[in-house]
């Protein structure tokens, strides 16, 4: 009988689920937003449907991400640091450093033999996170998806001095009103955020290869800005948003394997696919 593992990554912005056995069988990405959080089970159900499995077929469920504590149907909670490390170790084994740019935080992880050995994390200030771009995109009236592409057409990148997200928004709007071309502003934003990320992740003594994960990796402008800072190109997994969820599923698989090897009983929670009680 084949064993199936699920990883669920409840991020601050996006909820991601993958189901794996030896390979990835299904994945779903949905927004986290406050009203969606209680629907974590729906995202899970959808993934199961895509994999044509029922919840009882799943051997082990690992939850990760910012909302991991609130997943009643998970067997174990593991931090996104370990999950991203595991995910990258699997997807891009040559990577030594991971930079994960999520919705509300940004992490740097140092890898050795596919395991996290050190990490840094910023979540004190929104600058340097996906939210920075979301907020400013909104201020500029640009779709988030277009930010990266637009910035690549910049001619004179403008400097953005504010690091506070809210103030940066105003700064860019003022620049726009002053007639500065949109691409130049967006490129400036990418540069500012790349500098923040680079300074923070630099604490780990960045080693090649560098893998970029999380939503920020979907932004080509940001990727380019970071590459300019690093002086070399980075690796991006095919779907960077899923890295943590894949890592979670894999860690679940590791746990099951290890318990089997050591012939110790597998500890599983009394789980059932129920609504996550995030709201009362």
């Amino acid at each position: 009988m084949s064993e199936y593992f699920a990883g669920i990554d409840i991020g601050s912005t996006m909820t991601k689920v993958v189901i794996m056995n030896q390979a990835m069988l299904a994945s779903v990405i949905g927004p986290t937003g406050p009203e969606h959080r209680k629907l974590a089970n729906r995202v899970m159900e959808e993934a199961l449907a895509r994999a044509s499995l029922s919840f009882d077929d799943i051997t082990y469920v690992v939850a990760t991400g910012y909302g991991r504590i609130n997943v009643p149907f998970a067997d174990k909670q593991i931090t996104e640091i370990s999950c991203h490390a595991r995910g990258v170790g699997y997807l891009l084994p040559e990577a030594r450093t991971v930079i994960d740019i999520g919705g509300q935080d940004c992490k740097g992880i140092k890898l050795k033999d596919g395991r996290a050995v050190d990490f840094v994390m910023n979540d004190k200030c929104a600058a340097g996170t996906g939210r920075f771009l979301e907020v400013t995109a909104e201020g500029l009236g640009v779709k988030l998806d277009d930010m990266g592409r637009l910035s690549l057409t910049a001619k004179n990148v403008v400097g953005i001095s504010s690091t506070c997200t809210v103030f940066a928004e105003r700064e860019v709007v003022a620049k726009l009103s002053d007639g500065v071309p949109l691409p130049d502003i967006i490129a400036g934003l990418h540069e500012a955020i790349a500098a923040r990320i680079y300074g923070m992740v630099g604490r780990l003594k960045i080693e090649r290869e560098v893998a970029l994960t999380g939503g920020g990796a979907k932004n080509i402008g940001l990727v380019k800005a970071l590459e300019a800072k690093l002086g070399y190109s980075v690796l991006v997994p095919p779907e960077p948003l899923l890295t943590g969820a894949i890592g979670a599923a894999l860690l679940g698989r590791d746990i099951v394997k290890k318990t089997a090897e050591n012939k110790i009983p597998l500890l599983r929670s009394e789980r059932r696919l129920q609504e996550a009680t995030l709201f009362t």
Partner: protein
Amino acid sequence: MVYVAGIDIGSAFSKAVVIAKSEIISYHIIPSGGNYKLTAEEVAGEALTKANLSFEDIDYTVATGYGASNVSFSNQVVTDISCQGRGIFYLFPSARTVIDIGGQFTKVFKVDERGRVTAFLLSEKCAAGSGRFLQVIARVLQIDLEDIGELSLKSQSRVDFNTGCAVFAESEAISRIAEGASKEDILAGLHRTLAAKIQTMVERLGIEPDCALVGGGAKDIGLVKSIREGLGRSLLVPEEPQIVAALGAALLAEEKAASIEVCH
């Protein structure tokens, strides 16, 4: 009849006021959006339409606010602090301390018996002390900005907040909800946080009665209540607190128009 206009291009909202003989003929408020130049034209145009006037009817226009320099049709730019002072003097001649809760900053200032601003303080370099904080929260809680105040008054047990950053207030609010807090209690907590920051500024400047509260934040009755309780005194709040600077700008425009008349 001499018509003049005051345009206040704020960081969050743009306001236009048309007056004649020091009486408000019409006013209009729209979000500032991504292009101040167009916004200015739009908000002024709307206000004029309401007054059944056209741009040609306006003798003099004073622009103020964050995006004042983008108002292509203005005759003069005046700092918003002077406009606020003028507007307050018109509305509440007895006010000596004024709190202005705007989109990016909170300002506290003192005005003298002629509406001149003699001292002021601006909130710190962080959006957490401004009205923007409320906007962020309104969005995350999926309620209309207008409803914030009413809702927070229903709070039974306030959730205490302590965050430095407006953007993070959002995630803090989400986690508090996850912990089971109600929207009402969260709002009440945020109001308290904001009010405490504002209170600190007022105390630093030294409060003198009467105290007026203006700016978009003054439309939030929950916040007003929280500030009133914190300061332990009553507050003068205009009917439409958001247009005070624009009104002041219009009044200054009127003075200017008059003096030009005299010159001719």
